[in-house]
Structures are given as structure tokens and as C-alpha cells.
């Protein structure tokens, strides 16, 4: 009985003290959601094959802003993280980078074979790489407790 109470007390304490980690995760989400939305907008703007000069300018501007915003989110996440979390993030980024390289290679081959158009997939591949990076980093910090 006493052991059970002690266990629950310990668990409650653990949950309460995880607020620091949750706060860090929340900060990444707060940064990441508007940037992801910007990515979707950039993708939507670039999806029209018959663009006017104005539309093209908007598309390029949005994509540039998205790229800069991604770099800004990365920098903020790195500054916030300690040395262990920084390593986790870098390893996750390495996996995502490899996935992006492979996907780009496959897309290039398919483009050469006339099956798909590379320019239509390029942004999806980059956003996919971002998703892989965030998912791996989140899962690693979530399950290694």
C-alpha cells in the first residue's frame, strides 16, 4: 500500500516536472505551426503551372520567406536545447537529409523517364524531409525516458 502510494507520488512528481520539457515542445510548436502554414501556402502558390508574373513573384517571395523562417526555427530550437537534445536534433536532421537526397534522386529518375515532373515534387520532398526530422526528434525524446 505504502509502496503504491509512493509510486503514484513519484509519478505525479515526474509528470509535474516534465512541464519544462513540455514547455520546450510547446515553444517548437508555436514556432513551427505558422512556418508550416507558410510552407503550405508556398506549395499552393507554386502549384499553378500557368502563373502570371505577379503570381510568380508572390510564389518566390513566399518560398523565400518560408526558407528563412525554417532557418529561424532551427536556430531557436538549437539555442533552446542542451547538448544532448542538440545531438538528437542533429542525428534526426541527418536521417531527414538522407531521406531528402534519396527522394530527390528517385524523383529525378522518374522525371527523366517522363513519369512525374520534378518541379512538382521538389517542395513536397523538402516538406517531407522536415516532417521526418521533426518526427524522429520528437519520438526519440518522447520514448527515451
Amino acid at each position, binding site marked *: 500500500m505504502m509502496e503504491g502510494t509512493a509510486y503514484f507520488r513519484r509519478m505525479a512528481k515526474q509528470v509535474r*516536472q516534465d512541464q519544462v520539457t513540455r514547455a*520546450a515542445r510547446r515553444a517548437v510548436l508555436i514556432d513551427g505551426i505558422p512556418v508550416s502554414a507558410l510552407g503550405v501556402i508556398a506549395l499552393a502558390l507554386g502549384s499553378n503551372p500557368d502563373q502570371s508574373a505577379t503570381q510568380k513573384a508572390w510564389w518566390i517571395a513566399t518560398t523565400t520567406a518560408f526558407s528563412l523562417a525554417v532557418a529561424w526555427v532551427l536556430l531557436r530550437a538549437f539555442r533552446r*536545447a*542542451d547538448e*544532448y537534445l542538440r545531438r538528437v536534433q542533429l542525428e534526426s536532421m541527418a536521417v531527414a537529409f538522407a531521406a531528402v537526397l534519396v527522394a530527390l534522386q528517385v524523383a529525378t529518375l522518374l522525371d527523366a523517364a517522363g513519369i512525374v515532373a520534378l518541379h512538382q515534387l521538389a517542395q513536397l520532398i523538402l516538406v517531407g524531409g522536415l516532417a521526418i526530422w521533426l518526427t524522429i526528434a520528437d519520438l526519440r525524446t518522447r520514448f527515451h525516458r
Partner: protein
Amino acid sequence: MKNRLRELRAARRWSQADLADRCQVSRQAINAIETERYDPSLPLAFTIADVFGLTIEEIFRPDRAGTTGTEA
């Protein structure tokens, strides 16, 4: 690298989060060090040693199974 983090923490009745707060790192970092999945940097090892009031050598020791090393 082997360490006595869990033992020292238990002796002081500190949770991983308590130690993490004292060392100003995440609880995941303390957990990774304790379970020997991650070797801390020298500055962090010094911080941990300071927090426990010990030297680095009293907390961390090299994992030299089967080697003679420099010890007498």
C-alpha cells in the same frame, strides 16, 4: 563510460528532473547519461561533479573492460 549518477541521486533523494534543474539541462539528458547512452561533455561533467560536491573521477570512470589502463 560508467557513472554513479543514479546511486548518488538516490542517496540525495533527487529525481532526474531535480538533478536536471540543478545542472540546467533537460531531464532526457540526465536520463541518457544515467543509462550510459550518452557521455556528457567535459563542461557538463564538471557541472555534475560540482552539483554533487565530488570530483569527476568519483562519478565517472572509463569503460575499459579487459584493458590494464594506468591504474596500479
